[in-house]
């Protein structure tokens, strides 16, 4: 298999419901952090930000921006700083794979990530009594002291690979590998697929004139694109350093 998995998120369709956040956390056994956790210390591999255009009253407009690991393809910052080689860019899929079990918790990668898409396990994962029975068996539970992030639901990729092999096929069926966030989105704002496949819907979406990437000027070549027909939203990507003030999560 040789793919470059990525996403295109249509910001005109995102209603900020948070279903993607829930589904991601449920799929990845993300523990509910203790009550003292804040927006900075919580664990949100998928995090939806609310950004406004700065106007008030009838001219006010808001957009919701789901942010996950961007799976940077060029000089991936977190990969280059990790002393443990706990993260690598997978050659076959382009997924930037974080190995929490190898991480020693220095958090250098959290500093390096321009998108603040990495989260630290400040506490032991703990669920209310009995709730561990509802954990997803496909994903390992992490421990305190390691960094984690979105891995594009690689457990689902594994299931798709296994299913394809059992059926005697060499390539996976794209319909079998859908990350939790895309599956959950009620408006279909999140589109996931193989950016290297010209026939994949995500390819044409990523190459549409309305598509843009956050912090593209850094040159990390993120594989998560955003799309909007609204000019002020597109302008955000360019002026993001000014608009960082508006967002509740920096």
């Amino acid at each position, binding site marked *: 298999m040789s793919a470059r998995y990525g996403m295109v998120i249509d910001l005109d369709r995102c209603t900020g419901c948070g279903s993607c956040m829930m589904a991601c956390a449920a799929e990845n056994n993300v523990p509910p952090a203790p009550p003292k956790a804040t927006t900075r210390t919580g664990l949100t591999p998928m995090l939806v930000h609310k950004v406004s255009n700065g106007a008030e009253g009838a001219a006010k407009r808001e957009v919701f921006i789901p942010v996950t690991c961007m799976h940077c393809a060029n000089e991936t910052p977190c990969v280059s700083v990790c002393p443990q080689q706990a993260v*690598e860019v*997978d*050659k*076959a*899929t382009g*997924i930037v*794979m974080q*190995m*929490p*079990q190898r991480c020693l918790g220095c958090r250098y990668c959290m500093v390096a990530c321009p998108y603040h898409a990495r989260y630290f396990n400040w506490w032991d994962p703990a669920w209310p009594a009995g709730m561990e029975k509802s954990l997803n068996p*496909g*994903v*390992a*539970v992490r421990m305190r002291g390691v960094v984690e992030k979105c*891995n594009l639901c*690689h*457990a689902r*990729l*594994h*299931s798709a*690979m*296994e*299913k*394809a*092999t*059992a*059926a*005697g096929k060499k390539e996976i069926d794209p319909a079998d590998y859908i990350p939790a966030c895309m599956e959950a989105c009620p408006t279909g704002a999140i589109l996931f697929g193989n950016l290297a496949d010209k026939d994949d819907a995500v390819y044409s979406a990523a190459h549409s004139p309305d598509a843009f990437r956050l912090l593209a000027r850094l040159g990390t070549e993120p594989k998560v694109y955003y799309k909007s027909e609204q000019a002020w939203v597109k302008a955000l990507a360019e002026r993001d350093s000014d608009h960082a003030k508006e967002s509740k999560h920096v």
Partner: protein
Amino acid sequence: MTSRRYLLVFGFGFALAMVAGWVAFPRALYVRREQPLEFHHKTHSEKSGLTQCDSCHALNSDGEFAGMPPTEICAGCHAEKLGTSKSEATLVDNYVKPGRETPWLVSSRQPANVWFSHAIHMRGGGLACSDCHGNYGESDETRVYEQNRISGYSRDIWGHSISRLRRAPHDGMKMSDCEACHRRHNIEAGCLGCHE
């Protein structure tokens, strides 16, 4: 104190440490644990005619591996007691009748963050069960389960040889063993390929 005496005392300490490290330590490190009941593969394959591993240790249609067969597979023949053995009585009374799963101690159990796909290695890679698990299917005794007191994993993961030198082909299921075989066959997996 003569230097000969030094040497003697030194050698004595050295020898003591060697014995402790090579003989006593491996014995102390592992604790033997009992399986919930005895199971002899050979007896079963002879009596039932199920000679293939995947008669009970099957892959389902999605490619998922059943691992230890669920109680209902055993119940296919042992819904009632067929013989007089104590093990069978335990199976039928404690697990088949109440509909509970037998708490087998799995000697090849990997950590939670490992993804090993039997479908991909067997159907895709052409490996046979015995390539990694040995000819266990032909044994007529229940294998002893030894558990590492500190790490909690089965001895089969590290392998029987404490030094890992001169070990049998399928003695050991550590990551380095997987990597060695992948290197031999020139199959790259990356971190993503094997980890959850």
